[in-house]
């Protein structure tokens, strides 16, 4: 994507957004927070490429 252009909405679109309801529940969203564990929290040792050699 990487777009520097602005995003502008007109009145019709703004009304649609303002009056719309979420298509996703808060519970569903909260479940996504814990879907992936952080690699830093893993107890196993991970070998990083830059640990083998530093330029």
């Amino acid at each position, binding site marked *: *994507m*990487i777009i520097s252009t602005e*995003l502008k909405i007109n009145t019709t679109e703004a009304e649609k957004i303002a009056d719309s309801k*979420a*298509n996703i529940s808060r519970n569903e*969203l909260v479940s*996504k927070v814990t879907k992936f564990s952080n690699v830093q929290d893993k107890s196993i040792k991970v070998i990083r490429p*830059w640990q083998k050699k530093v*330029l």
Partner: protein
Amino acid sequence: MAEESIVEENLQTILSEICKSIRDSDPDIGEKQLKKRLVANFVEYVGQNFFVEKNKELDSFLKDGNKSIKEELNGFSRTYFLERINKNDEIDYLGFVTIRIFNLDISDVDIKIKKKLILSGKSPKNIDCIPCYLIEQVAKNSNVEDNPIGAKDLLDLAMGKIIQSNNLLGSALVTLLGVNIDKVINIYSEYGFEKFGELKTPSGSTVSYQPMYLKLPTGIDSLCQ
């Protein structure tokens, strides 16, 4: 996807670890040289291992270390990776997302409708934009054989981060610019995003993007879900 084998990591941590590694090998290194080596190491170990098929702009984001690192260090955006720890205890970079705060321009919107989008008590005449979250980039690494993740996993990663930010700070809208190909737009639509506005084609690009939004749960209904 076997979720237990997939982990997440943010770009900031990766950069921090590379910096530490460089400093450990050269404690007296100056700031300018440190930055130069940080970019070189990042491009060699992360950027060059990444290949985003069919989208040159996305493909160049990590390969041009200056761009991705500058965005991160200046606080313009945050990039998160999905990674797999392989049998050699090494990391395979499976994909990444970049998210940031974005101002949606509402300067052309009628005052009556503007009022619905802004805080009560604020004058709609003086407000021409509303803050929202932007999922700026969603990229899967085509260099990884049998890459187990899909676009939905990357969106879950992005939305997990956004909802954490939303829980702390608020804001009700997530936007993105989807590559205007039916297959891609359908993935976002199935996730809950809706189209708005006209297609955008950045100057010098052959790719068109469809603006899309997803409303986050608000109001009393969201408390009862």
